[in-house]
């Protein structure tokens, strides 16, 4: 099937070359970072994680969101999702790959990464994150490839893949729960020290990931003969609506606990992000952009008229995706570090090389995604109209 990724038209190749070129820019700046050090980024002693770890966190959510298609299709036999489910699985592969690349980009000594395996440390959440993320990547590669392969041959998928599909469901929850535990168990980081962190992560993941999937499905439908189905897209739209509601509700709970208790350690990061603290309000416009986009997109998703209209649905999904990207890919990380343990405000803003490395990783992710989708679409175009068994 892999050959399908290399049998594209002119537009396909221009797109692939474009992504490749952007990725190369990222690689160039990564090599600079590799020799000069992480000092090339905007990070410092007080905000020691930044854009890279933010992207990692956000993309773990995107990866986990495939489960929102897998559950209805495989557990509830919801046939409407028969075509779209492969798009979710392949999106997960691309997202996990980006996660791994962002972790590598953030490491001070990337050549020593195997130390995590050579000196396994079960008390470190990062050790578990390493395990669950690699496991999830293997699961999705295997499941996506085997089911699509059977589909190509017009036969039902082999029986042995079923248990792996069922395993991928709790596994998806685990990757985002474990990622939340990276933050939620640290004493002295009040912004992250919240029991609802994992639940918030899952809610935002199940909103952001499927929203991206709706956008991708629309694009796929426009540029190929493969149609994931209007009904499927509408169903995903409802999932996004519920998840986004849960996400905003959970964020509200955080606000309540912080501000009603009035404990300074808990309120300070929120003040820094949404109002400004000690004269520093750099992130305030960004966080309010996220808030407004979240509110408007939720309204779009709640009202049937705007949700059922595919044009406004896709606008809602774009707004929602940007909103969550700001909230989780940036605000969540920086908010945990400001103010610092001395209650001093030291701000952070990514540098140009850091931003270009980030864009480069996204390009690699989209490159993988484009090739995988090309394969899926080519197979599905051939088997169009045939009922997919599972």
């Amino acid at each position, binding site marked *: 099937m892999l050959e399908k990724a290399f049998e594209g038209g002119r537009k396909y190749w221009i797109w692939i070359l474009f992504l490749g070129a952007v990725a190369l820019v990222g690689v160039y700046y990564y090599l600079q970072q590799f020799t000069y050090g992480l*000092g090339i980024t905007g990070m410092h*002693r007080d905000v*020691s994680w930044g854009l890279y770890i933010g992207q990692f966190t956000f993309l773990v959510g995107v990866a986990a969101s495939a489960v929102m298609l897998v559950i209805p299709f495989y557990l509830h036999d919801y046939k409407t999702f028969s075509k779209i489910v492969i798009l979710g699985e392949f999106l997960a592969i691309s997202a996990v790959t980006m996660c791994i690349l962002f972790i590598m980009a*953030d490491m*001070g000594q990337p050549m020593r990464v195997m130390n995590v395996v*050579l000196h396994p440390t079960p008390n470190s959440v*990062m050790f578990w994150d390493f395990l669950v993320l690699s496991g999830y990547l293997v699961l999705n590669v295997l499941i996506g490839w085997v089911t699509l392969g059977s589909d190509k041959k017009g036969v039902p998928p082999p029986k042995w893949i079923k248990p792996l599909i069922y395993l991928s469901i709790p596994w998806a929850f685990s990757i985002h729960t474990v990622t939340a535990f990276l933050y939620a168990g640290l004493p002295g980081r009040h912004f992250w020290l919240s029991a609802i962190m994992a639940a918030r992560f899952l809610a935002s993941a199940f909103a952001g990931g499927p929203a991206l999937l709706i956008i991708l499905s629309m694009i796929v439908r426009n540029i190929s003969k493969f149609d994931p189905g209007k009904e499927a897209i509408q169903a995903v739209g409802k999932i996004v609506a519920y998840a986004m509601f849960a996400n905003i509700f959970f964020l509200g709970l955080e606000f309540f606990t912080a501000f009603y208790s009035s404990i300074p350690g808990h309120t300070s990061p929120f003040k820094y992000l949404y109002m400004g603290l000690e004269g520093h309000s750099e992130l305030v416009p960004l966080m309010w952009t996220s808030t407004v986009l979240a509110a408007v997109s939720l309204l779009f998703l709640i009202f049937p008229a705007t949700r059922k209209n595919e044009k406004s649905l896709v606008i809602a999904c774009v707004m929602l995706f940007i909103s969550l990207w700001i909230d989780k890919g940036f605000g969540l990380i920086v908010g945990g570090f400001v103010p610092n343990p001395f*209650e001093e405000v030291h701000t952070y803003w990514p540098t140009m090389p850091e931003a270009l490395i980030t864009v480069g990783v996204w390009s690699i992710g989209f490159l993988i995604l484009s090739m995988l989708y090309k394969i899926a679409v080519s197979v599905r175009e051939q088997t169009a109209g045939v009922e997919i068994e599972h």
Partner: protein
Amino acid sequence: MSMDRRQFLKIAGISSILGLGASVANATHPIWVKGLDPSQVEPNKDALNAKKWAMVVDMSKFKTDEDFKKTIKACHLTHNVPDFRNPDGTVNKKFEVKWIWQTSYERAFPGQENRYMEEHLKDMPFLVLCNHCENPPCVRVCPTKATFKLPNGITMQDMHRCIGCRFCMAACPYGARSFNWIDPRKAVNPETENKEYPTRTIGVVEKCTFCTERLQSGKMPACVEAAPKGGLTFGDVEDPNSEVRKIVTTKLTIRRKPELGTGPQIYYLIGGGDHA
């Protein structure tokens, strides 16, 4: 086994690419040869030992700026702590690495100040460093055991194993850890470099080690030696006869953020003055 330096470097080079550096280094180290066990190697008889090292900081003994500077400098020179400067000579805050430093009461003990407190009390200088916690979050989160507890209570770290993930920096509630954002060797003055202590590579985290290497050769920590008399008292808090223990038992001391359950082992003496 016999191998010359050239062969060794060749194998070490290849295996470190494969991430096996540590095991090769172990295999060729004298104490691993021919079944020699670490217990058969005699420890230094002069080494200072303790069940749990701890420090009492008596700020009343630090009277001048010079007292602070001298103490901090002793540590930073002993350990080749990089000194990043801006072109105008001020400290480069972006790349700053510090093991022991001066901050204000208000910053060291956030939330303890009150609004009626006079400015000079809020701004009262305090020395801060790694707390060598009994239950250190940095050790808990490290994915490679690069930071770990020694049996003597010191929170130690292996800068050759550190992968630079900076999880420990997020976990430390005391801001005690620094990362080498750029090549630290460029910020070590060759004239004052301590050849007996290694310099660091780029991309690893470092912090105070309670001068583990000095204790092993029978010397007190560098800061303790350089501080004004009675300013820093260092000893075994588990030993009922130690000076440190006597102070923490009989005097009013406070610790930074004890409510987090980390068990910090730096005690700040309140009132101070006449204990020693």
